């Protein structure tokens, strides 16, 4: 790692970057355009997001707020927990713990820095963590292992039984830094009384762990308030998803990213609701005018990503889709499994979804346990890919409901879980009539395959399959 990288806390730097970005539009348009020249590695992210109007502005503001919260957590006397994208942070907010989501921070750095997270990725290897592990955690955890992030109090993950390489990153870092560790474990089955009881007991154990770490009891009123806000967010997301079914889709391509990132950052908090509400407002307006959310206005194709996005610098994936008239119909991260989501009511069993019940403390714990066990990836990619409620069924269901013309897989070479069966999945989705493209890139590390090569191969696939 370069000496200059060690000069400042990385999270403080990231906070400053987003805080500055959030202020860019406060001047005139000319001033804004002039400023973009001075942030050559970041200007396209800013322009893409701010180009969406109020939602993009609010989204950058909550990214800044999130970074500010974790940067100054210790000064405010709060505990910090390193956690993962597929762990709903609602429980942390209810217990006044500041969550630090590794993957979201990795995405932020990959978007805005020329070198992405490369130095932190490599630092992990220097201290003994395997180079074959997933880059989504490695990209940020390396900074904490190097001691250039805010002080961490605990590690909490919910991926054992879902993603080893994720769970292992948390286990490794907690052992390396000698910090407390908690895992929510996931049995192979999503539904049924055994799994439900297991989730409940496991979540109760998590609450005991968090209470022990913070020295505070869980405040049911606060959790209730948080879950009510979450239910409101679910309603908005459900409407956005419903609108995405229209032809043309009135949602701009970057909305998917903003939906899931907002939820990963501020589930159950007004910050997330604010972004979602402003997206809904524009989506409704577009829908009323029957116009596409694509900047070119013409929808040529609809793509469903069955796993994650490619977070190449400057949001180039979104720009590529938008520039080619490809409507982005979501990925496995952007579809939540609330009982009122269109994909739940239309093709799924209600049992596979969660419902928020704020009646009493038991129902609150059950609700938050169910939410966690049905988070993106946790729900779909735990048991066998072709089991009920799992990856194949979810992928085909979502692709059909949102009218996808093709399915795209993108992940990281560290994803043992999906690479272990993606060939099988692709065979089945092709049989079901969906041209399926497996990207061999690394979503978080352009050194594995440059974005230019990734884009070229993607476009080649579209040509070969005569989709364009």
């Amino acid at each position, binding site marked *: 790692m370069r000496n200059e990288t060690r000069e400042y806390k990385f999270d403080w730097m990231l906070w400053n970057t987003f805080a500055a970005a959030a202020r860019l539009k406060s001047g005139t348009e000319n001033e804004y355009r002039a400023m973009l020249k001075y942030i050559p590695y970041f200007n396209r992210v800013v322009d893409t997001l701010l180009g969406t109007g109020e939602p993009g502005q609010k989204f950058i503001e909550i990214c800044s707020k999130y970074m500010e919260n974790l940067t100054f957590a210790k000064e405010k006397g709060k505990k910090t927990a390193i956690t993962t994208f597929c762990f709903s942070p609602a429980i942390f907010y209810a217990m006044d713990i500041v969550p630090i989501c590794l993957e979201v921070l990795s995405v932020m750095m990959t978007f805005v820095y020329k070198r992405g997270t490369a130095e932190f990725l490599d630092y992990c290897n220097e201290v003994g963590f395997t180079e*074959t592990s997933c880059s989504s955690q490695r990209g940020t955890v390396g900074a904490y292992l190097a001691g250039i992030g805010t002080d961490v109090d605990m590690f909490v993950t919910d991926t*054992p*039984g879902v993603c*080893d390489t994720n769970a292992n990153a948390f286990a490794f870092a907690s*052992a390396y830094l000698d910090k407390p*560790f908690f895992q929510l474990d996931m049995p*192979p089955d999503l539904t049924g009384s*055994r799994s439900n009881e297991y989730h409940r007991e496991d979540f109760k154990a998590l609450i005991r762990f968090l209470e022990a770490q913070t020295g505070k009891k869980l405040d049911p009123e606060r959790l209730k308030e948080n879950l009510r806000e979450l239910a409101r967010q679910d309603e908005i997301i459900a409407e956005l998803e419903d609108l995405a079914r229209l032809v043309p889709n009135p949602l701009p391509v970057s909305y998917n990213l903003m939906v899931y990132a907002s939820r990963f950052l501020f589930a159950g908090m007004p910050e997330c609701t604010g972004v979602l509400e402003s997206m809904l407002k524009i989506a409704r307006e577009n829908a009323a005018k029957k116009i596409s959310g694509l900047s070119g206005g013409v929808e040529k194709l609809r793509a469903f990503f069955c796993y994650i996005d490619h977070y190449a610098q400057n949001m180039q994936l979104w720009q590529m889709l938008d520039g080619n008239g490809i409507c982005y119909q979501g990925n496995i991260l952007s579809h939540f499994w609330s009982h009122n989501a269109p994909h739940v009511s239309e093709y799924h069993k209600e049992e596979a979804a969660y419902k928020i019940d704020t009646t009493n403390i038991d129902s609150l714990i059950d609700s938050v346990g169910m939410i966690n066990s049905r988070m993106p990836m946790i729900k779909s990619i735990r048991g066998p890919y072709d089991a009920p409620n799992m990856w194949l069924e979810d992928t085909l269901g979502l692709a059909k409901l949102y009218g996808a013309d093709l399915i795209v897989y993108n992940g990281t070479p560290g994803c043992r879980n999906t690479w*272990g069966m993606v060939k099988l999945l692709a*065979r089945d989705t092709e049989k079901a009539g969906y041209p399926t493209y497996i990207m061999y890139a690394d979503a978080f590390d352009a050194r594995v395959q440059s974005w230019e090569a990734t884009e070229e191969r993607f476009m080649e696939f579209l040509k070969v399959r005569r989709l364009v």
Partner: protein
Amino acid sequence: MKEFFEASTALNNKHVTEWKKNGKKVVGYTCSYVPDEIFHAAGILPFRIRGFGATDTTIGDTYFGPFICSLPKCMLQLAGEGKFNFLDGAIITPGCDSMRRLDECWRKAGSDVEGVIPPFFFHFGVPHKYSDYTIKWFTEETRRLIAAVEEHFKVKITGADLKKAIKLYNYSRKLLDRFEELRTLDAPPFSGEEALAVILAGTTMPREEYNALLEQFIAKAEKSPGIKNRVRLMLVGSANDDVGLVRVMEGEKAIVVADNLCFGSRFYSDRVEEEGDPVFELSRRYLGHNDCPRMYGDYRRRLSILEKKVEKSKIDGVILQNIRFCDLHGSENGLFERDLEAKGIPCMRLEREYGPLVETGRMKMRVDAFIERIQQRRAIA
């Protein structure tokens, strides 16, 4: 010793052939979290599935993606080649992501080619932590497995049968404890290669025969003058069922006197309580005993186990090996290296592929260099 080597280096060995000739069933499993006693109680031979003997992974690569451990790929390769046709059943456990996905890949191969998949195929869930509710869940899972075996094979597994099997396997563990004591002597009566063959044989032959052979082996070993003046190594990390790998490491200068491999000492450590509900006791032992990094958040305990072994076996150096893409062992090896080296215990990390010893030269060179380092250290001391 010949019997052990034969049983540990041939998949369909003479014990399995003999067993099948008598019309009895064989069920394979992929991970040491599956209680053998259940199958013994059902009159079925439990057989640890391995990838040993695969010469390529063309079939494995057809189903698995490229970034996957070569162990399950080799297992699938052998299944695809019909080498596991003697199995009447197979049990897949979520030992790790790669191994978990063997379930789907094997099933898919079975739907592509007739006869590739055994008639009984079962996914056996194993929690990733040890607590009251995880044992409860695992006990129910074990009961689910028992019910499935009973239904498929038309057998009845009674509590009395299970208790009998538990006693038999506990006796085996007692013998293996004695075997381990001999292994840690200043002049061990057998090499690490032989030790691995003895342990592996236990995963592929009827337990009664194994115990009898083990008794004879121990009796003979107790009279042996032992192997002296070798650098004493401990082998740690990913699954290794290849006696040839240990032979390469030992060469003429070293001897592997301890391990913490799932095909090694982790396989027989601890007993099952013989009183009480046998299913619960089996579940408690099998979930609790196993010191695999898949049990997240338990690093300190595993480090402590290694430290005790280092002391007890007078280890000169620790080889921390992992199969490529085995992030669990690979990363934990990084922690072990940091913490053991800090205590003055020389360590060497070694990444390798599972399967044919294509890397013999590289590994031999690295291990020899490590041994030299230890010898120089000794000389200075």
